[in-house]
Every structure is written in C-alpha cells, then in structure tokens.
C-alpha cells in the first residue's frame, strides 16, 4: 500500500499474487493497525474521536458505493435511501423484537441488498445517465414510503429511538467505545471488499465495467452480476445506515435524503473510482475537509476579516473552499486522490536515483 520495489523482480505467479509483495508491507499494515487501534483512541480526545467516528461510518458507505460505481461501472443516486432501508429495518427489529446488533446489522444490510437488487433491475436495460435517473426515482420512492407508512417509520415523526448497542453486557456509549465498535465493521468492510475484488465475482464486475458486451461474450452472466453488484453495494449501504443509527441513537429519514447520496458519490469520485484506498481517502476527505477548513478559518480568519464579519464569513468561505479544493484536486488528478497518492509514491520509488 505504501511502498514499492524499485523494479519487477517477480519470478513466480505466487509471488505476483501475494497479498504482501514485500515484508515491509506486512509491517506497514501492522503499524497502521497499532496507530488506529491503540495509539489514536489512547491519545486523542473525545471530540477528535467523534470526528474519526463520522469518517469510519462514511468509509463503509463509500466502499460499498465504489463496488457499484468504481468496479462495476453502474451508477446509483439512491444510496442514501438504501441506508435508510437498513436503518429502519434495524430500528424496527430493535424496538419490536429487542434484537442485538449482531442480528440487526446483517438484517439491515440484507434488507437493503434486497431493495437494492430490485432497484438494480433497470440497469439490465439502461446505462449511464438513464440509470442515474432510475436510481434517483428509487431514492424518492423509498423516502416517500418511509415517510408515509407508519408501520416502517414508527409514527408521524418518522424517527425511531434506538438504544446503543450492547457488547458482553456493556452498553457502548462513549465515543471511544463506539470507535472500537465502528472500527470492527470498517476492518470487516475493507477486508471484505479486498477479497471480493480479487475473487471471481470481482473480476466479473470489472469485466462488465470495461465492456459489458465483451464480458457477456466471454461467458459472464451480466444479468446475475449486475444484480449482485447492486445487492452487495446496497448491503454495505444498509450496514452504513445501521451503524449510523447506532451511532446517533435514532433512525430518522431526514438523515438519508438525496444530498447524502450525492455526498457519497462525491466521495468515491474524489477518492478514486475502483480502488479501496480511494474510497477511504474520499470518505475521509469529504468528511474532514469542511471541519479542517473551519479550524483553519477560526485560527487565521482574523487576518482577513473583522470579528463581526467573521461569523458570517466562516460558513460561506468554508463552502467556497470546500468546492474550490474539490475542483482543484480533480483538475490536478482527474482519477482522484488515490491516483495522486500513487503518483507521489511512484516518484519516490527510485528516488533519489531517478533518471
């Protein structure tokens, strides 16, 4: 992930397929694990952990959307709605049956996968911008349904209170506890995606993305794999919705509206389509950038503005900087942050002996 040999020295297929091409890769992963599982929660304050938690939730959703958009080449503007499907499934299971999280999370994911596969059916006939509109319709239909069916929404408020998850009899309340809870699922999601894209299914997805007619000719069942892509991607979205519900302690349809779908689409495009690291970069970037720009303006804004104008300037400038930086990074590297990172890495690959 963070290192490269200076050339191609592989002599066997086994070496080429190895998960860790160099011993340092193993150490890098271990170091990251220690950093995020031991060092971060011990050193960072509650506020910073809460920001990390928002990033973690976004990572799961971005990974899922990237499976669909980046790996399979289908588009969805309905992922916000799939999250709400997961969230309300879990919330209803908790309130009616008292189900624990290890039931509600897969259940929410599966329900979202089912709905997602249904919504994916038009993808068999339509592509690109037309598919975008079909999934947009799904977003609106699901929003409307949740909003108007009290059996799902739990009443006029369309919000259901959910107690925080319990693990071994301990209720996970503090940000640090929730951090570990969420981190577990993020690790699962990353490992799951990494394995998926290296599997037969993952390769079929990539074949469909690159040229679906060619994929069909070489024997890939497009019908099946496109629906698989929608289902798996929606499963991730559903899990994101459940995690979000547990994190906030409430399922509320206003948390999953159209702008959420757009935000997640922005994450995978900014991060880099068709890459796991890109999904992580994108999710962290979109979540952190508004916060970082505000910190920056709070600390240095007085250089440019009077104290009374500052309050109005910060939120507006933050939006402008956010939009500007997104355009900036996409112009610098249209293939996203992941590609930018690879460029940097490649530069240092034989540094300082490059010719």
């Amino acid at each position, binding site marked *: 992930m963070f290192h490269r040999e200076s050339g191609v020295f592989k002599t066997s297929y086994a070496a080429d397929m190895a998960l860790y091409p160099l011993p340092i890769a193993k150490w890098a992963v271990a170091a990251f694990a220690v950093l995020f599982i031991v060092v971060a929660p011990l050193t960072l304050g*509650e506020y910073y952990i809460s920001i990390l938690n928002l990033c973690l939730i976004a990572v799961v959703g971005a990974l899922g959307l990237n499976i669909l958009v980046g790996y399979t080449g289908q588009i969805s503007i309905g992922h916000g709605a799939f999250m709400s499907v997961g969230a309300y499934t879990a919330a209803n299971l908790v309130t009616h049956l008292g189900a624990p999280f290890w039931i509600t999370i897969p259940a929410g994911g599966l329900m979202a996968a089912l709905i997602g596969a249904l919504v994916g059916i038009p993808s068999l006939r339509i592509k690109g911008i037309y598919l975008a509109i079909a999934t947009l319709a799904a977003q609106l239909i699901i929003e409307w349904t949740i909003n108007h069916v009290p059996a799902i929404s739990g009443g006029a408020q369309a919000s259901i*209170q959910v107690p925080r998850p319990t693990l071994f009899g301990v209720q996970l309340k503090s940000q640090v506890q929730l951090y570990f809870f969420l981190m577990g699922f993020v690790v699962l999601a990353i490992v799951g995606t990494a394995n998926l894209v290296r599997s037969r299914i993952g390769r079929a997805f990539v074949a469909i993305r690159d040229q679906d007619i060619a994929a069909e000719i070489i024997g890939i069942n497009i019908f099946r794999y496109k629906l698989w892509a929608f289902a798996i991607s929606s499963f991730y979205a559903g899990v994101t919705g459940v995690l979000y519900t547990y994190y906030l302690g*409430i399922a509320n349809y206003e948390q999953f509206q159209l702008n959420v779908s757009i935000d997640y689409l922005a994450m995978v495009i900014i991060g880099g389509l068709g890459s796991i690291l890109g999904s992580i970069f994108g999710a962290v970037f979109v979540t952190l950038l508004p916060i970082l720009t505000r910190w920056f303006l709070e600390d240095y804004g007085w250089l440019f503005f009077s104290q009374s104008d500052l309050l109005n300037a910060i*939120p507006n400038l933050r939006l402008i900087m956010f939009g500007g930086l997104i355009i900036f990074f996409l112009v610098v590297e249209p293939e996203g942050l992941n590609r930018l990172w690879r*460029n940097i890495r490649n530069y240092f690959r034989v540094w300082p002996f490059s010719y």
Partner: protein
Amino acid sequence: MKSISARSVAAIVFGLAVGATASLGLTGPAAAQQKGEILIGEQCDRTGATQIVGIRLCAAVQDYINVVNSKGGVEGWKIRVDEIDHEYKVPAGMEAYERAKKDGAVSYMIYGTPHAQALNQKLNEDKMPATSPGFGISASADGVRYPYLFPVAATYWSQAAAAVQFTKDKLGGNLKGKKIAYVFYDNPAGREPIPILEALQKIEGYELRTFAVPPPGVEMGAQVLDITQRFRPDFVINHLFGRSPSVAIKEYKRAGYSLSKVLGLVWASAEADIEAAGGWQVAEGYYTMQFAGAGDDFPIRQEIKAMYKAQNKAPPKEMDDTVVYNRGLFIAALHVEAIRNALKANGGQKPTGEQVKKGFESINDVTLGGLVPPLKITAADHEGGGWVQIFQAKGGKFVKMTEWFRAYPEIVAAEIKKAP
C-alpha cells in the same frame, strides 16, 4: 520516466500542500476558554436549506450576548456563544455539538428538528441542557421523559391548538360545520400537528381536510386550486417552511382567496416570506403566529441599536427583520437567564450542565419587555406553557392581533402522554 516527471513533481507539491494544511488543522481549534467566561454552544445554519432563518437568528444571538457582556455580564461572568454552521446536515451537527462539549459549553442551542432528534440521547448522557424553540420533538415538552431537551417555546402541537382557538374566535366562537383546510409541508415536522387537529375536530365538530405539499414546496398551484375552488374552506392553517410560505401566499392571492382567512404557523411567518411573496400589499391580511414578540418596540432592540451607535456603527441589516431576529434574542435571553439562575443557586461558581438545567427549570416570567411570553418552565413542563401571539400583515408591517395566549392545554397534554 522523463515524460511523467513534471506531473510527479506537481503531485508532490500538492501532496505537501495537503500535508501542510492537514498539520495546520491538526494543531486543532485554538478556541481555549478564557477565565471568567461561560460558554454556550450554538448550531447555526447560515448556508443550508434554512439559511433564510439562520443568518438573522444567529446574528441576534451574538448581539444579545454582546449587550449582556457590555453591561458587565451575568453575575460577574462573561458569556460567550460559539456558533458553528452545520448546513442543516446531521453529521455536521453532531461534530458541532461535540466541539462545543469539548470547549466546555454548559448549555446548547440546537437548530433543526433532525438535530434535536439525533442529539436527544447524547444530551442525557452528557447532562447538557439544550433548547429547540418552535421545532424539534413536541413530546419533549415533558421534562420527565426528556430531561435535557427544552422546547422553551410553543411546540407544533401547542401551535396547532392555538391555531384552532384563533380560528374559532375569528369564525364567531363556534366551529360546528365549519371547514378548515390544513396545508402542510410533507415531512415529519409538517405532519406533526395533525393528531391535535384531529383530536380537536372531535370536540369542536369542524370539517378538516389536509393538503400535503411535497418538498421542496415551490410548486403548489394544484393544492391551492383544490383548496380554494373545490373545498372552499372557512379558514386555512398553513404549516410550511423555507420558500414555500411565500409561494402559498402568492397562490392564494392569484386564486382570489382572501388572505385574511389564512394563518401561518411560526415558520411561515417572517418578513422574508412576505417579501418573497411579492411585498406587503400582496400579503395584506395574512395572519402569522409568533412564539417571540414581533416588531421593533422592545427595549432590548433599542439597547442593541444604542450599543452599535456607541461603536459608531449602523445597526446591522439583520435588525430590519423583526420576527426571526427577535426569536434569536428570545433564545439567547433564555440561555442567559438559565445561567443566571444557576449562578445564583450555586453561589457564583462556574455552573455545570446539570445546574444550568435546573436554571432553565426555574425560569419564570422573563418578559424582556413583552418579547418573551409569560413562560413558566418547570421540571415537568419544559415548554413553559405553549404561548403564542397572532399578528396580521397590515399596511407594511405585522400588527399584533392577540395578546399571549395558549389553547386546549389538556388536549396537548393528552397527546404528550400518548407519545411513544
């Protein structure tokens, strides 16, 4: 290798730029609390869906706090309000709340119904009192079940009850056989008053029809035609948000329906709505409901103007608004009052969230020259009574039509009790 080197160099420069920005950011927000200062956290929406409210309301909060501080603060303590814009997004709102908590806030101003719902559990865990005036969870008027959430102003349920009472008074004291149309923005907040309207229907015997306006509510010609041509109600109650109140006013006017038979609930009631509808002559006669006094004749507004004058500045343009701006004063005043009560009770020590909660629960008759209703907040009643006033758009401004009143408290109480 040469061909990509320019690009690579560019990449490295940008990588370093990102790194530098990140490390600047990672030094973290510098807002350390000064000694002798009490911090209130605030969510604000100056850039999101409801910025039409946010830009005025948040400015008013700061102005009020500045006036309080210029007069020596509260019991010797200076007050500071840290406002964070959340664009009406829930994750951003959560971050804003955690930030305020980290900086040591003792009370919190929530902005937005989904945020009130998302924060509800956290507030109890963190023992942080928070206000959600005029929005949020109606059932949180019950202080026993929602110990740290304070609606402080009339909830949607109280607003609906007051609207029916006003309709009754307008239609000659009897609603039997009368037709009332309820026009609402089709989201949870819009639907919330319906149970009250239905419960009162059984008592008062009016005919009720509800008309949903799908978001974003900028197209409602069909609903208005349906109301004015087919249903022909004796009175219309409008519960709309954002741009839609102005669209509604325009459409009623176009359909030739008298606006003096239309009442807007609190978020369909600002000067900005009238202006967006085409000005005061279009909206002439339109009734609006307020949970904070509207108008310019309040001593606190004069004090703020005097404060600006003393600094040789013109009063801010946000003050041209007398509805939303006054609501900002209302919210800030209640927080300051709660902190004052807490300071008095604990002998001038820096209060904790728990003590400020008690401070809120002993708010009694903070009138602010008539801007605030005769609130009486107790441990059981976090709404403070559910008071509203009705104003009418008349000759270029809002004219007060009623004093503070509340209606059908027993029906609202029954609904609160029934709420899950």
